[in-house]
């Protein structure tokens, strides 16, 4: 990877956010954080990340709505968004893709090489 890619982590649970941020920093990425969908859109509009990890169930604005909103913008319509959720049900996966997410990871992440693979898939 040439330049350090910028990744936005959107997650309302502080502990979970810290966890993912820690792992991503280990992998050498530059990290931005937001704790709900609304903050995510504001941060993304300002800082233009290369990829977003998006929790789905969040207060204020959830991940589905935030992803749909991103898809309406010029700069966000092709931005890779990977849904991250502690949800065991598969409808959630389906609905995440319908909202415009490009990938899906279920929490807890038992194998962290998955994160790297997902990022590489989108950022090369």
């Amino acid at each position: 990877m040439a330049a350090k890619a910028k990744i936005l982590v959107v997650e309302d649970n502080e502990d979970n956010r810290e966890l993912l941020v820690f792992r991503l920093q280990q992998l050498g990425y530059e990290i931005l954080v937001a704790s709900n969908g609304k903050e995510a859109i504001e941060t993304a509009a300002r800082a233009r990340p290369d990829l977003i990890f998006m929790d789905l169930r969040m207060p204020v604005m959830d991940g589905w709505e935030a992803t749909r909103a991103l898809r309406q913008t010029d700069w966000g319509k092709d931005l890779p968004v990977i849904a991250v959720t502690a949800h065991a049900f598969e409808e959630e996966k389906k609905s995440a893709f319908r909202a415009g997410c490009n990938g899906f990871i279920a929490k807890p992440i038992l194998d962290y090489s998955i994160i790297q693979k997902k990022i590489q898939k989108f950022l090369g």
Partner: protein
Amino acid sequence: MDRANILIVDDEMGPRESLKMILKPYFNVYTAERGGQAIEMANQVPIDLVTLDLKMPGLPGTKVLEKIKQRDPDIEAIIITGYGSMDTAIEGLRLGAFDYISKPFDVQHILALVRRALERRAARLKLREIKSEFLANVSHELRTPLSVVIGFVSILLDQLVGKLTDEQHRALEKVYKNSEELLGLVDNVLCLTSLNSGDLPLMEKEFEVGLVAKEIAQRYAKQLEEKGIELAIQSPASGVRTVSDPAKVSRIFHNLLHNAVKFTAKGQITVKVHRSANRGVVDLEIIDTGVGIPRDHIEGMFQPFQQLDGSMRREFSGLGLGLTVARRLTDFLGGTLEIRSQPNVGTHVLLSVPYRAATQKSELSELRH
């Protein structure tokens, strides 16, 4: 609310057409002359209510009702009885029909009946939605803290924040293993609950079964090593591709392997993955050299909360949900699960999951070569 879809099933044209005339102004009406045709139609159109003549040639009306209720227990049915044959009407009610009505029908009566049945269906669907939303929340709330525990322990275990002593490492391994165990239990309970409430969706796609088996086996590597059990996975190098629901196949296999590991103290576990083209299925076999199950207990093991020794100052902990969930999910996928076992010798589990027509074609051409 959208117009409800009503299916009229009657072999006689007279009553079929007159019912259609009555209902057509208010509902979308479909008709079927035979039971088989009715079931096919219910598979294609989201039917809200059926009116059903139980006395038909071919597939008996009660069977049709059973099949339709199996598909969606909240589809309402109104039994149409001919010559005051109460027996079949009562049989229909027993099978969950909303009510019955005798020919010739009174227009106002049948309209009122249909409307009441549809109201009940709407209420039940609403309840189902609430239940499923509740389950989704429970799942989320239980898994979130667990995922934090597992996540931070794995950071410590990977020694990303500092070197661990052997003892620290051992202690954290135990935290990790038990958290994973808890996660498995939570997932099984939730899976069983959503199977019971009938709102588990089927998510089919193409995937490689051998890979699923390997991924899950990997999670047990540590435990197997500690117990000194060898695990061999025999899967063709070319892979065994199929079209099914990978998450469910993976859960079934996970539960079966979990049992094999748990109930095997020494020896080996062999996993075989292969196609059985003539039966149109992918087979997953799990063969262990564990404690085994006496023949007359095998069926009982599929009941929830059953373990062989329920009373025991139990040697083995657990809820006994694994096999129940495995069996129910296998049924859900249209597969079969067979267990052969001999106490103190071991257990041989055969899971067969059908692959869909899309891949069946290539399978047949493979056979011809």
